[in-house]
């Protein structure tokens, strides 16, 4: 076992070899669709970190995700802490905040009222409330699925009003996240490119338990 630093040793072989590399830049997004806090919380086709340009696929043209719930990671500007979010529903969760806030990740009301860093790395757990000790991403996905019928209706109305591309598929249930991340969310091992790029995201805290590169 190496003891050269935080996060060593890494799992071998690298389990996300077949996934596209974590994109450090956020691609152009579908017009009029809401931004979101993490993988699998997107509202429509082409909305994810790769954007409408799609993610790379070996030997083939880039592919957009097909629909709501299938996106690769957050489209909100990455931030590393409670209150640093720019807008509604863009906060991560789990590190600071009340138990109530931690039970509604990705559902904050507005700018600076979000709870914690995005993307929501899969290792992160809540420190307060009903979700204490449990995965933040899984809670975020469950909340997203619960809220999807309402959001879907709102987006359908926007389509009717001509405010959103009418060609956007709005399925009755959100699709699954990319299979390598099913049931867990974006692992920090993937976000950090096999622990080589720990600066890809930071999550606050001095206990070393946030599961991501710390900012203090």
């Amino acid at each position, binding site marked *: *076992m190496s*003891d050269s*630093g*935080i*996060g*060593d*040793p*890494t*799992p071998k072989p690298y389990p996300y070899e077949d996934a596209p590399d974590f994109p450090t830049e956020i691609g152009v997004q579908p017009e009029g669709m809401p931004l979101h806090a993490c993988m699998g919380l997107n509202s429509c086709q082409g909305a994810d970190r790769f954007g409408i340009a799609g993610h790379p696929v070996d030997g083939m043209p880039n592919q957009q995700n097909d629909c709501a719930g299938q996106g690769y990671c957050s489209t909100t*500007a990455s931030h590393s*802490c*409670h*209150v*640093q979010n*720019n807008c509604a529903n863009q906060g991560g969760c*789990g*590190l*600071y*905040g*009340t*138990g*109530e806030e931690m039970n509604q990740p990705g559902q904050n009301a507005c*700018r*600076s*009222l979000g709870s914690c860093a995005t993307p929501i790395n*899969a*290792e*992160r*757990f809540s*420190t*307060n*409330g009903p979700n*204490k*000790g*449990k*995965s933040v991403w*899984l809670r975020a996905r469950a909340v997203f699925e619960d809220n999807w019928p309402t959001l879907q209706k709102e987006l359908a109305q926007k389509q009717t009003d001509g405010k959103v591309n009418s060609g956007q598929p709005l399925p009755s249930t959100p699709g699954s996240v990319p299979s390598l991340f099913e*049931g*867990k969310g974006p*692992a*920090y*091992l993937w976000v950090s490119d096999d622990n080589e790029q720990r600066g890809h995201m930071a*999550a*606050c*805290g*001095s*206990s*070393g*338990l*946030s*599961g991501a590169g*710390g*900012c*203090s």
Partner: protein
Amino acid sequence: MTNDEKFIVAPPQDPATWLTPAELALVADLDLNSNRDDVLARLKGDLQGAIEVELATIPIYLYSYYSVKRTEKTGENIRPCDLYANKAGGMIMSVAIEEMLHMTLSCNILYSLGVQPQLYKKAPGPYPTGLPYHKKTGPVGPDGSDKVLIPLSKLSYEQLWHFLQIEYPETADAWPEDRNWQTIGQFYSYIRCLVCTKFITDDDFTAGSKNTQVQSDNYSPNCVNSIYPDDRFDPWAMPPPNGSSGQSAAAVAQYPNSPDSHAGLVELLTVDTKSLALLAMDTICDQGEGYARPWGAAEPTDDPSKSEFSHYFKFLRLQAQMEEYGLNPSHQEGLPANPKAPDAISPAVSQTELDEVIVNFPDNPITACYPPDLQPISDFCNGVFQYMLIMTETVYKLPPEEQKLFFNIGMHRSMIWVLDPLIDMMRDIEITEGPYAGPSTAPVFMAPTFENINLGTRKTAFSALVGLGKAAVAASADKSYASSVTGLVATATTAKSDGQSMHLPDVSPYW
């Protein structure tokens, strides 16, 4: 029915504390020999004193907290000394969080009586310091002294004794004292008696609106800084419910604060009656010294679920894991009979191991004794500290609908985004000249001084903070830490995103 049986048949709720015979006697005496004006004035004065007692503990605890390197090694590489350091950091932070709660509860009570709480420039100093109205002598500490003078000092066996002096448990038969008190419990006991006199009514607690007091949703018992691991863990393992095979961080996480360690319905009560004021003080006393009477300080825990140790016992347990604990019979502290002191906790951490995880801070530093090029950084740090106190005072002046956002962008951002990384940066700066400079074999590093720096009036305080920031940036221009200082000053005073402010709020419109 035993105490344990009560927990089985009833929902776990902290009961309101009944007055002791000593308190009943004092209430009767006050009712007979005092008058409304005197009692109300003393109540208001004592509550401001209580606020200053709570405030005094915060820099003392944070100073030692910041001396601890919690994650020198982590994950699967954690050594016993790292586990101890992380636990010590989590425990001290868990206490500091509750001290902030206590200060706020006392502020809410005082505000309900129509008095604006005073925090700005009310921190103690110079250090070592007595606490407001605290008796100047107490039980003998490990150094043989009975002086109750609390230093700013790195984490050590002796400093933990000073923490114990602050949190020393009240005995069930203690006489209420608001002057020359020996335990904080006695001080609050006196305030409880004032509240319980015939001169004080529920109406007195409606002078300051409940809606503009600090609301309960601004408090949570734990955060990522109060938790700690109790074992090695696989940093790549997933948390429940779909956890992977390795031992995840979630699996080893310990939560030193319990959500039920409070009297009343929530931790951070707002106050508009006598009974709510009494419940708020119950929470303060229970968390500090132990669970509410009739069991009193015989309990090492402070909550119905018995999962949270009192402040006193948290600190005593940290001492109990140091090699020094119980080692030298002539090096003993004056501890109360109850709660019973814990046996030594293994694995014991030696001084050599501690030296690897404790930053060598100077004792009781002041800015004026730092090298000239470091003084502007220390001034800025103190400016942020004092501005946090002004922002806390400002909360009581806000329209209620603005409070949550202000609290987030003011209190959270200043603590987590400015003060925390600023001190983290400072503690990497070796002091090479002046009275704090250490030998090359034991270098000394820069620490926060938590002084009452003058930011002028509250209305001009933000401008003063901006000025201190500029001076810190200028003084750091050619240093290795220049970019860190520049970034932190920007976060405090100038940062924007999409054209909108992302720095600390300017409080001047409210004063």
